[in-house]
Every structure is written in C-alpha cells, then in structure tokens.
C-alpha cells in the first residue's frame, strides 16, 4: 500500500499551514526575541515600532489575560518574557501588522533594556552551580558497588554527543481566528494539538472548550513540533483573541533555528566492568543533560536516557544517574529517539574503549552480552519476545559479517591513502509513552449512509504514514476497500484530550482505538445481517465488501447493509477508547513495566576515510530490523531509511555550535548541514526479521518511527574505526558528531616518537587514554 497522501504531495496539492487561504483582515505577526542569553529585563522601547508602517499592535507579557505560562511538565516557561530573559531567541513581544514584511521590519525597531547576567552554556557548569531542572534520577539493578571487585577489567571515560536541529522543512507556524462567543480556532503545525489547546486556554484564561485546534498535516516534525509548536499557536491565538481578527504567525527559517530547542546535547561519565570472558558485569554512568533554559520535555527525555542506558545488552549490575541541567540555551526538546540515542552512544563508547584496551573487536563484546529472553532491564521489566539474538544472527548470516571484516582488513593492508572501518550497531527500543497515563487514545468513526467512512483520531500525519495505517486498520476490520475511507483532520473538538503524535506509539494507540470502534460497528452490522437474513451470527463476516456466511456469499453487501442499518435506526457511528494494557511505572522505586514491547535490530556500517584530507564516505549500511508483521512494508521501509539517515547525520555532519554567550553560530542552512543526496550510503540493505510480531502492536505490526535512528550511531564508530586503522596509536575522544575537522585532527595528531616515516602497522597499540 502506497502512502495515501503521496498523489497530493507530488502534485503540490497537499495543504500545509502556510497554504491555508487567508481570511479578509488577517494580521501578520513577527516575534521580537531576546538579544541576550540571560539578563534582567527592565523595560521595552516600543515607540518606534508602533509608529512603523502597517503596525496595528504590539503584545507583551502585560497583555496576557490569563496565566503567562506554557510549561508542560514544569511551570517554568513564560509565553512572553517577564522580568528576566533566559535565552537568546526567547519571545519577548509580538508585533501585529498588516503584512508580514511590515511586522518583521517593525520588530527590528524594538529595543529591550536588559541588564546582563552570567551565561551558562555547559551542562557540567550548570550542575556544579546547582542549576537543575528537576531532582536527579537514578536507576539501579543488582549491586554495582560490590560488583567491581569481581571485574577482570574496568574501563572509565567520558562521552559527548551534540545537539541536533530538527530541520523540518516546513517551519513552525500557526493561523488563528476568532469564532463566535469569544472562542478561537487555531490551525497549527503541531504534533500535540491538545497541548496547544490546553496552554492556549491557560494563557487566555478561558475554558479549553472555547479553543479549537485543527491540524491537517505537518511538513515534518521529528519531535520538534511536540511541545515547541505550542508557543506559536498560543501567540497567534492570543492575537486573535485580543484583537478579534485573524492572526498568522509563520517563523522565518532563521527565527526558527535560533528560537526553538533541539535534541539535547549530553556529556557523560561511564565506568564499565567486564569479566575475563568479556561479559559485562557492572556499569555506572552519569548523564549531564543540557536542558536549556526551561524544562520543556527535558525530564521525560532524561528518563528515556535512563531506560535505554544499557541499549540491548544485559548487565546485571547497573547504576545510572541523570541530571537535567539548566543552561541559557533555547529549551531543548523531543527529537526522534527522545534521549534514548544519547544513552546508547555512551554504552557503545564504553564498549569501544573496552575493546581497544583489551585488543578485541567491539562486536565480540556486543555479541556476548545481547539480551536474552527473560533478562531484566535496569528498571525491572523483563525482556519478552526478545529478538536481540535473532536480529544479530540474521545479520551475521545475511551479510556475512565475518568475511566483511576480513575484506575491510585486507583493504587496509593494501591502502595507505584510504582506510576503512566497520562497526556493528545493535539496538533495542521500548515502545510506549514512559508516562503511563499518556498511553491512551480515542477514535471517532462515522459510516455514512452511502457506505463511505470518515475517521477522526488524535494522530497527526507528519509524513510517517499514520493516516495510511489508520485506513489499513479500518479497511481490514470492516472488510471494505480503502478508497471508501477518509481520515479527517486532527481536531480537538472531534477527538479530545489526545496524547501528542510521538514516542513511535501513534499508530499503535490510535490504530487500536480505530480497530475497537470498527469492531463495534462491524458487530452491529453483522447482528443486523443475521437478523434480516434469519441466519446465525456465528460465521458471518464482511470480506471485500461482501457479506459471507461460512465463507459463502449471502444476499447482501456492504452498501445494502449500511443502508438497512440506517432505516432500522442503528447507530452508524462509534467512538472508541483504547488504553495500553499492563504498562505501569513507579517513580519512587524507579521500576515497573513501562513498555508495551521492544523493537530490536542490528546494523553494520562501513566507512572509508581519506587519510590525506580527513574526509570520509559512509559506504554501506546493511541491517536487520524487527518490524513484527509489517502492515505497510513500503511505509515502514521508508521510516527505517529516513531514521537511519537522520541518525547518521546526527553522528557525522550535523554540528550545532553556540558561542559562550549562548549565540547560535550554525544559524542558517549554509552553516548547519543535514544529509544531502550524496552523503547517503550508496549501499543500504534492509532485511525484515521474520517473526510473529507482537500482540500489543497494531495488527502485530511494530512501531517503527524512532528505533532506526539509532542505527546511525554505527556511522560514528565506523568512521572512528577507520581513523584507528590509519592511526592505531590514536584514540579519538568519544565526541559526536565526528566531523571532517575532528577526523583530520585525529589523523594528524602528534606521534609519540619524533617523525616516524613508516606507515603504521595494524598491530594493536597500547591503550592511549582518551578524554
């Protein structure tokens, strides 16, 4: 099944936020943001801006009728700055003008009187000063303190991973207009319509029932429009509410880059203990998360880092501690993987360092420690229907990993100008919102009298193909053709109190709700058929729009059945509620059963480094992925390819740079580079692991949004291995992304002895301390 949106996309007919026809009298908004990263806001000079052509009004914190607060988890984030500014790019005022250029020109005329305060950009500095967003969290398994004595080898070190800009190609935006009786309707490019509604109501000081949020689709989200779409939706709503005029706010790219938060950078310390036969016995890790200036989703991201701190390995003794550190950067937020990748990068770094020290390959340590059925995660949940070994073994077999490594070694023996590296990256990712209450969804299904079907859910389509999957679920459950089914916009008045489209769980949660609603409708229609045809209900089914009894067609079909139901005054609409069974988590004991299931996979990545120039090419990624029973293999393959490349980008070229004053230096698309066509590996092979799927996954088709991003971590280690093939005496710091700059600096690092002129051999070098 192709993505049902595709035909509209290729014809340029699909409607995004900026494509909505504007109403008469629409005002255009521009944000005036803090020019400093930290300071006391003593006042604003608005006169020049107010006098500028086309300007209608400028809104500041003083204009907010309700509460000036949009913090989702912690109430620490004003919509418009008041008293203090905490990061460069923090919204301070909203200019409303007749045209967008006028609004932007006027915003440049605003001046703020700000008394500078010290700026923190480093999470470890913030930690040292006690600047924490929430109290630290620690996950424990076994008795790590006692376990060190049993370890034959103990490795310690530091790992750093950088942030990542979402770079959805459609920037943030919202279009709000007043409705009757003091209400507001908001079109928003958001993954979380309910968040926009809830915070809008809070800021306007009105009931949630007076704010309607509608989402057609997003031009990309990746987590960046989960909580961070809210300020723009609420600002537009505020303008529309106060002025009783339509207000449109679309961020220019440059504003989007400097005002919005990104993937959290992490700095981490690890200590890993191994037995003589390379079993991981103990792991102690401390994560310093760079949260930015406000909580946003940081506490939840932090939690998922802890959930994935041991990746897909069983370690009997674990102590993982995480600090969410407040800095003067834009509040960092959700990004595909949601803290999981940051945690996994650290354990993989620890394993790589152990391998270097012990003179073995990292893959040997990885393989010997993969999770087995029934092994316990450091939060108490057992690994069930565990496919860690199955994925690894399938990869070994399908890609002949042994021969592959030999080819790489042979290449490195004969080549001096280029060196290759191969790295294996197994993954394990838990599916569910870790905040248990969020694992609920609803669907509203209408069957119209002509047999066509309209479905509303809380799922937001952002390219992941969730609408297509909802159609597939409904078509299979009702037994009808997919072209009878339409997925409506995501709208808070049709489906209320939704969880955001996030955590890879959107298709599972909303799909299960659609399935429940359709099952109810089908049951009702079959009861009617049994009644009308005077046959037993048992054995009756609807299949390809025909009504069958024990496999034989009867004198009815879908259209007739639906029409008959209407005339019999049978309800042709259903609203169903689904809550994931069995999941729970107790924060007091930091243990529970937070995930409905896990997704597994194993990837092998090869890179070639140009030893002279320090550049590199990612040659190949071959992976085995645990899709379950994929209901839409084309869509799922696309999610794996896209997630993989995003992960490779994060690990290689995507470098977010802030200066010490909290100013974003990589603030354009010409300075922040995401993968282009040519930077993608020429050879990408994706094998579907054959399994029965998981019963808690919709139609046994597992969630696929986030897990593949973490294959990209293999790209980092492939490049690093290639560097070490050229310079076995060098142990580059575990610091991602591994840019050409870092590669060349490592390749040309001073040699221990003076000017050796021979090509280094492949012998194992003594372990050089890294970072």
């Amino acid at each position: 099944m192709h993505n049902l949106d595709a035909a509209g996309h290729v014809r340029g007919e699909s409607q995004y936020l900026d494509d909505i026809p504007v109403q008469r009298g629409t005002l255009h908004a521009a944000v005036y943001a803090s020019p400093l990263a930290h300071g006391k806001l003593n006042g604003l000079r608005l006169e020049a801006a107010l006098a500028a052509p086309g300007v209608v009004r400028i809104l500041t914190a003083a204009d907010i009728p309700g509460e000036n607060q949009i913090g989702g988890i912690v109430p620490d984030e004003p919509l418009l700055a008041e008293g203090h500014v905490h990061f460069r790019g923090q919204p301070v005022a909203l200019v409303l003008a007749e045209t967008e250029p006028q609004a932007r020109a006027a915003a440049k005329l605003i001046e703020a009187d700000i008394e500078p305060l010290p700026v923190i950009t480093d999470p470890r500095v913030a930690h040292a000063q006690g600047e924490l967003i929430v109290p630290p969290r620690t996950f424990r398994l076994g008795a790590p303190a006692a376990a060190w004595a049993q370890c034959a080898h103990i490795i310690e070190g530091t790992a750093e991973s950088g942030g990542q800009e979402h770079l959805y190609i459609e920037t943030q935006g919202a279009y709000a207009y007043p409705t009757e009786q003091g209400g507001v309707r908001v079109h928003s490019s958001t993954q979380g319509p309910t968040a926009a509604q809830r915070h809008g109501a809070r800021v306007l000081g009105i009931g949630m029932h007076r704010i309607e949020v509608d989402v057609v689709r997003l031009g990309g989200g990746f987590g960046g429009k989960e909580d961070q779409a809210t300020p723009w939706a609420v600002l537009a709503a505020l303008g529309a509410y106060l002025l009783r005029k339509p207000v449109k706010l679309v961020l220019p790219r440059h504003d989007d880059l400097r005002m919005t938060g990104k993937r959290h950078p992490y700095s981490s310390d690890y200590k890993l203990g191994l037995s003589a036969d390379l079993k991981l016995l103990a792991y102690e890790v401390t994560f310093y998360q760079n949260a930015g200036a406000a909580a946003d989703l940081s506490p939840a991201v932090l939690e998922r880092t802890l959930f994935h701190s041991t990746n897909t390995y069983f370690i009997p003794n674990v102590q993982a501690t995480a600090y969410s550190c407040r800095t003067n950067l834009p509040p960092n937020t959700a990004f595909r993987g949601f803290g999981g990748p940051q945690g996994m990068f650290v354990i993989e770094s620890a394993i790589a360092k152990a391998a270097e020290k012990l003179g073995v390959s990292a893959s040997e340590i990885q393989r010997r420690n993969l999770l087995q059925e029934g092994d316990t995660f450091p939060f108490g949940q057992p690994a069930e229907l565990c496919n860690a070994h199955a994925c690894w073994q399938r990869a070994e077999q399908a890609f002949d990993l042994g021969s592959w490594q030999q080819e790489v070694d042979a290449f490195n023996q004969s080549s001096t100008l280029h060196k290759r590296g191969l790295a294996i990256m197994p993954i394990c990712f838990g599916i569910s919102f870790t905040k248990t209450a969020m694992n609920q969804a609803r669907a509203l299904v209408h069957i119209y009298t002509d047999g066509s079907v309209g479905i509303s859910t809380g799922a937001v389509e952002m390219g992941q193909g969730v609408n297509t999957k909802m159609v597939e679920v409904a078509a299979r459950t009702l037994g009808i053709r997919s072209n009878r089914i339409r997925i409506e916009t995501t709208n808070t008045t049709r489906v209320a109190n939704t969880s955001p489209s996030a955590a890879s769980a959107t298709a599972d949660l909303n799909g299960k709700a659609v399935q429940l609603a359709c099952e109810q409708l089908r049951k009702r229609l079959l009861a009617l058929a049994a009644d009308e045809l005077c046959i037993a209900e048992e054995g009756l089914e609807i299949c390809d729009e025909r009504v069958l009894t024990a496999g034989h067609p009867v004198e009815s079909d879908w259209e007739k059945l639906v029409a008959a139901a209407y005339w019999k005054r049978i309800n042709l609409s259903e609203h169903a509620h689904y809550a994931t069974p069995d999941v729970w988590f107790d924060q007091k004991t930091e243990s529970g059963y937070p995930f409905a299931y896990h997704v597994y996979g194993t990837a092998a990545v090869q890179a070639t480094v140009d030893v002279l120039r320090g550049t590199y090419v990612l040659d190949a990624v071959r992976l085995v992925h645990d899709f379950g029973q994929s209901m839409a293999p084309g869509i799922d393959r696309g999610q794996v390819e896209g997630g993989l490349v995003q992960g490779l980008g994060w690990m290689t070229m995507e470098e977010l740079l802030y200066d010490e004053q909290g100013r974003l230096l990589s603030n354009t698309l010409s300075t922040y580079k995401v993968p282009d066509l040519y930077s993608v590996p020429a050879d990408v092979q994706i094998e579907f692991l054959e399994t029965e799927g998981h019963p808690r996954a919709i139609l046994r088709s597992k969630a696929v949004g986030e897990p593949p991003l973490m294959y990209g971590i293999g790209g980092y280690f492939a490049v690093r291995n290639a560097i070490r093939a050229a310079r076995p005496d060098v142990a580059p710091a575990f610091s991602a992304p591994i840019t050409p700059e870092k590669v060349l600096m490592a390749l040309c690092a001073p040699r221990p002895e003076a000017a050796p002129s021979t090509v280094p051999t492949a012998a194992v070098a003594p372990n050089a301390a890294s970072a």
Partner: protein
Amino acid sequence: MLEFYLNDQLVRPTQPAGSTLLDFIRYQQHLTGTKIGCREGDCGACTVLVGELQPDEQTVRYQSMTSCLTPLGNAHGRHIVTVEGIGPTEARNLTPVQQTIVAEGGTQCGFCTPGFVMSLTGHCLGGAASAEATRAAIDGNICRCTGYKSLERAADKLAAQLLERDAAPARLEWLIAQGFVPGYFAHMPAKLAQLRAATAADVAAQTGGRTPDAAELPASWLLGGGTDLLVQRPDEVLAAEVNLLYGHATRCYVRELPNGQVALGGATTVEDLRRSELMQRHFPQLARHLKLVSSTPIRNMATVAGNFVNASPIGDLTIFFLALGTELMLQDAAGQQRTLPLRQLYRGYKQLDRRPDEQIAEIRFSPPAAGEVFNFEKVSKRTHLDIASVNSAARLRVASGVVQAAHLSAGGVGPTPLYLGQASAYLIGKELTSDTLRGLNEVAQQEISPISDARGAAEYKRLLLRQLLYAHFMEHFPQHVSLAALV
C-alpha cells in the same frame, strides 16, 4: 514592462524587480505548490523551472532554479513553470515523474516533494539519460524524511525511461505524448519569441533603435544570479533599483580568443562553464571539480563574475580562477574599460579595487598549456552543497622532477580569497620532494591568517590547507611524494 509566462498564463507583475519570484508565485498568484523552506537556496523546496528561448527561436531550454533567490525581474521574457504547470496532462493524471516518486515511496511529509518533482521534470526536458545525471538533477533538494534511497530509485527508473526519449524523433513531442509536460509546452517557443520581439520594440522605442549598453544602465545595483546577495541582503535588494545582469544572452559565453586565451562573458553562469566543451577540453577534471560547487539549481543561476565581486574569502570559483592568472575587463558607466588581474581585485574583507559603476564585462585567462597541470581541492563539513572550510587550486609545471611554474590559491584562510604568491614563488626551480613540500607549507602558513568560525577552528584550517597543498601534488605527481613521507 516586466512580463513573462507563468505556466500557461502571461503575467505582468507590478512588484519590484528585486522582489523574489517565490513571493510572487505564492502570495500574488496563490500557487501554493511551491514551498518556502529556507529562503537561502539551500533546501530546494521552492524549485521552479525557468525556460529561456534559445537563439534559434525554435526551442526553449529549461533549467531548475530556486525561486527564493530568483529576482522577479529575472523572469522577464521567460517561461516559469511551477508544479501546477505540469499536470494533470492530457495523457494522464500524474506525470511519469510524479508516478515514479509515488511508486518508489519517495515522499513522506511531502513538503519538499514539489521541489523534487520540478528538478526531475526539468531534467527530463533536457538532461542526459544516465542514472548519475538524473540523480545529479536533485542534488539541490533536501529531504529530511526519506533518507533519499527511494528518491534515488525513482531517479534511476526515470533515467531508463529517458533512453526512449533519446530514441524518439522529436524530444518535446515524445515528452508531451508521454505526459511529462502538458501540450501547451509545444507553443512556448513561439510565445516567447513574441515576448522577445515586444521587448526589442519596447527598448527600441526608448533608445532610438540602439541596444542599450550595460554602461548606460543607471549605476544602481547590478544583480547577477543573486545567489548570495539575496541571501545576505534581501531587504536591500528589494528596496533598491535593481538592474539585472543575468539572462543577457549576449553576455553569456565561453569562447577561445585568437591568442589562445579563454574569454568568459560577464554573465556566464557556473552551469554554462560546466557545459562548455572548451572548458572540458582544457580541464579534464572540470565535472568533478564543479560538482563540489553548490548544487544544480544554484549553478544554473550563479555567475562567475558574481562569485568574484561577492568577494567571499571562500568563493570556490574565485579560488579556481586565482590560480589561473585570470584578468578582468572592467567597464565603467562611461564605457571606459580597464584590465585588472583578479588577484589585485581584493583589498580587504569585501573590499574591492572597483568603482561602484564598474562592472565585469569579460573574464580572460590562459588555460593550462601542454605540460601544465591544474587541480582544485575543497573540503567542507558536507562534501556537496556546502561552503568550504578551506579550498585551494594549483596550476603547476614540473619537468624532470623540478618545478618550473607554480600558481597556488587558497580560500577560507584569510579575509579575502588568497593568491599564495610567496608559496608559489618558493617552489620555482625546486626539486619536487617531500622536503620541498614541507618547506612550501612553511611559507604558505606565513601568508595565511585563518579565524575560528562555524566552518572550523583556525588550527584546523591551517592543517587542512597543508593537506590540500600536499593533495595537489599527490594528485598529479604521486611518483615524487608520498603521504608517509609528508606527515
């Protein structure tokens, strides 16, 4: 009067010539298939086709361009095609380009998709039927969702279909019959010829029959491709009285002079350069080198002279031509000409030895002679469609292991594009050995003054320049030098 065809409609915008084609398309014409992604030519979501009548007046050449960096005035007399202008066609509901993208799963969120569709459609109209060339057509389109593999598959399938196009007796007729573009495309040459005639009549009425010389244009802004100016200073361009250099067909040329030099017209684009057989003959590695310079739509717009005058310390073409001993023919408002070596153009950061009314009328250089080699190196965070951390070019003559002539340039290591005069002079008469190259590097390091910025730390840029200087020699004289002996 500004007039052009937008799809099958003749339009006469009243917006300023320096406003963007993108804004006109989206907000005046309400054609919302063309998307806004970055407004700096780096994402390709706003890609449109720009068709220009060829001198034969029988054919129109279509090129992809980013409408965010296309001044509205540059559309004059042309055929601008947006995604709404290619379908549905008489033949089918989706064009073969669209069908192939759908079939291969080449679209997820869909926001970048119309840009890909336009780039590939442009390629089908005039590009080569190879997989490599077809993929290259989308090298300026960023997709954040798909990871490109599906789009590569789509490009490869289209490339196979283009073999049939090349076998057909008439290309455009075949493309129309197959539904790649609608039937109205067949009438565009005649329609554009009418516009050309109308413009000529208009100009004749104003100037008494003479073609106005560029020198007669008011000394305001002279805009070439606009690919950097519209990124850096869009508001000023919008407000200024803008004259458009681009598209003056008589000023786009690459030709050989009687003295063996090569001359480029002042409006020659990077793509003109890339396609020139003369250039390819003199620079066998030209395709490889220019693949490192921006992307297809930007190469279609950006001019060589614009790259020089923009004076970016890291301009790829500036570095390329600095090593060639290039001379500029500058012409002022009075029509006076003077010759200035390119290496004397730069006086400081973005400071030029050029009066405001002077413009580059022609660019001349002597191509590498027999026995000479030329090399261009560039390293950036992303290999393609990125700005260099450091770039460098070299023109060298080595005989019997001794350097006879050397011209080296380097970008990203100082406030201006640098001709490395001392380093070049150092090499003359020296035996080409690893020691000589280490000595070369020591001299070169004295000539540069890199700063730390988003493209790398100063220390890295110094090291990288050394490596790129070595690379010039390793590319062409591997028998004399080896990596192991150098570092």
